[in-house]
């Protein structure tokens, strides 16, 4: 089941429906098991084992991020000045709509018809493709995964592997539908033939594009450089072939120096894909220089806020350190069965459950921070030590304050809270329930169904209590 891109139309309120859909999808479940447990998790563990200093580097990266955020305005000022010195322009964008307008204006000013795009989650966040298309500019995604989901008109299901939920057979069908000029009898049964086809289709687009748009993983204040990491080389062609390069980044991506960027890079690929370094790490600074035979004549850096400045110094401050490696997603037991689309917006998994309520509102996204077992693996694998469970708990509190959850669940919690505040009443109320459950469930040792517990028993048995209430047994000396 696919889903339409949703930047303007979040589907977070439907998390349960999306989760159910994913759980019922046998193909997707196999894909998840293979990609996450046998793929990303093992690869990260191996890369970490090859680098004994991995944990020490995490501390360094956390400290670099913390230091930069403490002096963020100063580093951004320096960064901006250096970009300008190198011939580039910096555009400050207060929100997604503003950023889209800025980018469209640049495209219009050079009469752009098509733009190639390197992979950028930020452009998903701001809904750039829809905006460009609405105004007659054709965006072409060039990352293979992004290209596949663009053709299928789907949102990404993962921040670093946007099409991991799609099988090669589905890719073949998509290519047949969207490449009608090619021989219908061609063999597309193998991933290599799919790749060859995408490569040759996109090669022409790269060369024809009027503008190239990329993201930026890190901004360097020292030199006004930005960098991207890719394995395919698509982001690199995107920024070296067209006469205009627009990089979209956000204010929290800046670090002080090139050496600080190295520390982030020593962690990024290892944590994300288990590579010691991505194939292509490209640092770009301003426009092409006199004598250069390629590179853009115009360089624009769009610096997006979109609510990030409101996080600074607040309870969610630490999320600003995120380097978007995807490790928390890859290790999340919830993501590993519900996949990305269930989260209903751009960023899935633990990081998404922290970011999404901020972007789309707690009313829409209150289910996301609750879709968490508090197992803590996300924090354990985070390369910059973001306390994701604490941040999720913050959102749970806010959701509760906003009157979420409502309905029966809210009533249940209120009754429970009223009882819990009155220990004598609590004991009194619980004793007969436990006794009744023991009597009824004695024979089997568990219930297949119990009144009011359908949410639990639908997927597993409810064990029969083994003695009296906890309080009674504790009082009776059991330890």
């Amino acid at each position: 089941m696919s889903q339409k891109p949703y930047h303007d139309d979040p589907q977070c309120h439907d998390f349960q429906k999306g989760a159910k859909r994913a759980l019922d999808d046998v193909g997707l479940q196999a894909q998840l098991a293979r990609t996450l447990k046998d793929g990303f998790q093992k690869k990260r563990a191996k890369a970490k084992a090859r680098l004994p200093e991995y944990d020490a580097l995490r501390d360094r990266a956390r400290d670099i991020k913390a230091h930069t955020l403490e002096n963020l305005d100063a580093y951004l000022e320096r960064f901006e000045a250096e970009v300008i010195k190198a011939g580039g322009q910096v555009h400050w964008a207060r929100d997604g709509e503003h950023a889209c307008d800025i980018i469209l204006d640049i495209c219009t000013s050079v009469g752009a018809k098509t733009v190639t795009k390197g992979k950028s989650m930020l452009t998903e966040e701001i809904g750039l493709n829809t905006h460009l298309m609405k105004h007659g500019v054709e965006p072409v995604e060039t990352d293979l995964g992004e290209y596949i989901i663009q053709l299928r008109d789907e949102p990404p299901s993962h921040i670093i592997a946007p099409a991991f939920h799609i099988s090669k057979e589905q890719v073949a069908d998509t290519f047949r539908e969207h490449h009608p000029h090619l021989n219908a009898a061609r063999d597309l049964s193998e991933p290599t033939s799919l790749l060859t086809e995408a490569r040759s289709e996109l090669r022409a687009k790269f060369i024809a594009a009027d503008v190239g748009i990329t993201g930026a993983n890190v901004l360097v204040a020292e030199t006004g450089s930005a960098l991207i990491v890719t394995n395919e080389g698509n982001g690199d062609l995107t920024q070296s072939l067209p006469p205009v390069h627009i990089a979209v980044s956000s204010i929290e991506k800046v670090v002080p120096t090139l050496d600080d960027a190295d520390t982030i890079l020593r962690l990024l690929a290892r944590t994300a894909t288990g590579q010691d370094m991505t194939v292509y790490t490209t640092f770009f600074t301003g426009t092409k220089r006199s004598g250069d035979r390629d590179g853009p004549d115009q360089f624009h850096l769009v610096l997006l806020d979109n609510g990030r400045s409101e996080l600074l110094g607040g309870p969610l401050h630490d999320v600003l350190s995120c380097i978007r490696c995807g490790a928390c997603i890859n290790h999340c037991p919830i993501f590993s069965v519900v996949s990305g689309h269930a989260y209903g917006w751009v960023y899935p998994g633990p990081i998404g459950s922290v970011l999404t309520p901020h972007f789309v509102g707690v009313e829409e996204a209150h289910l996301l921070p609750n879709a968490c077992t508090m197992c803590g693996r996300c924090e354990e694998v985070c390369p910059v030590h973001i306390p994701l469970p604490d941040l999720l708990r913050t959102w749970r509190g806010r959701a509760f304050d906003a009157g979420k959850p409502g309905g029966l669940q809210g009533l249940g919690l209120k009754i429970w809270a009223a009882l819990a505040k009155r220990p004598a009443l609590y004991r009194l109320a619980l004793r007969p329930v436990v006794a009744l459950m023991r009597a009824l469930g004695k024979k089997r040792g568990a219930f297949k169904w119990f009144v009011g517990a359908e949410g639990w028993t639908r997927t597993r048995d409810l064990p029969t209590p083994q003695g009296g209430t906890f309080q009674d047994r504790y009082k009776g000396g059991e330890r």
Partner: protein
Amino acid sequence: MSTARSEIMGRLKAVLDKSHNPTVRLSTADQRIKDLPPALIPERGRADGPARTAKFVDEAEFAVAEVVKLTTLSQVPKALIKVLADAGTSKLKATPHGDLQTLDWSGIDVAFGRGEGSDLVGLSVAYAGVAETGTLVLRSAANSPTTLNFLPDVHVVVLHSALIEANYEAVWARLRSEGKGLPRTVNWITGPSRTADIEQTILLGAHGPRKLIILLIDEDS
């Protein structure tokens, strides 16, 4: 100054001013950029002497690059003959680097310039190598066009072993010491182009080169 800029900066300053005054923040940032506090360099990024070259080769091969060892630059055309034959072409697009232009290219149809979509084999010259991860560093310049690093099917890169640094920081130090700021593009290249976007199967040659061949010129060996 744009209003968005002053709005965003205003929000940042309102929070940051609570801990430090703005002048202190500016001087802290300036000082840190000037001081360059030493990064944590892992053991694998500290190899020296012949061990450094050996580490580079190991790591480059681990990243699926091919390494061909030569002893002088003049052996480069000969090494290319086999590469071109394997790629089924006699045409070579080479970077317009002075060192390459003076070589004896007889038997090879060589053109010097930027990369083009139809190039099958491209030849570049590396600015540096990084032993830590077997990474090549190429920088854009009149004699080093970036497109040549990405468009050819087979990318061949000349690297002098004396230019191999132990870690990335040493390459930045070299660039800083030249005092010209950063060029438009610095490419770190670690192995050939690849993708795992179809069912997480790793396939080489996504948009960039399917093959990366490093011609390592080790004058001491």
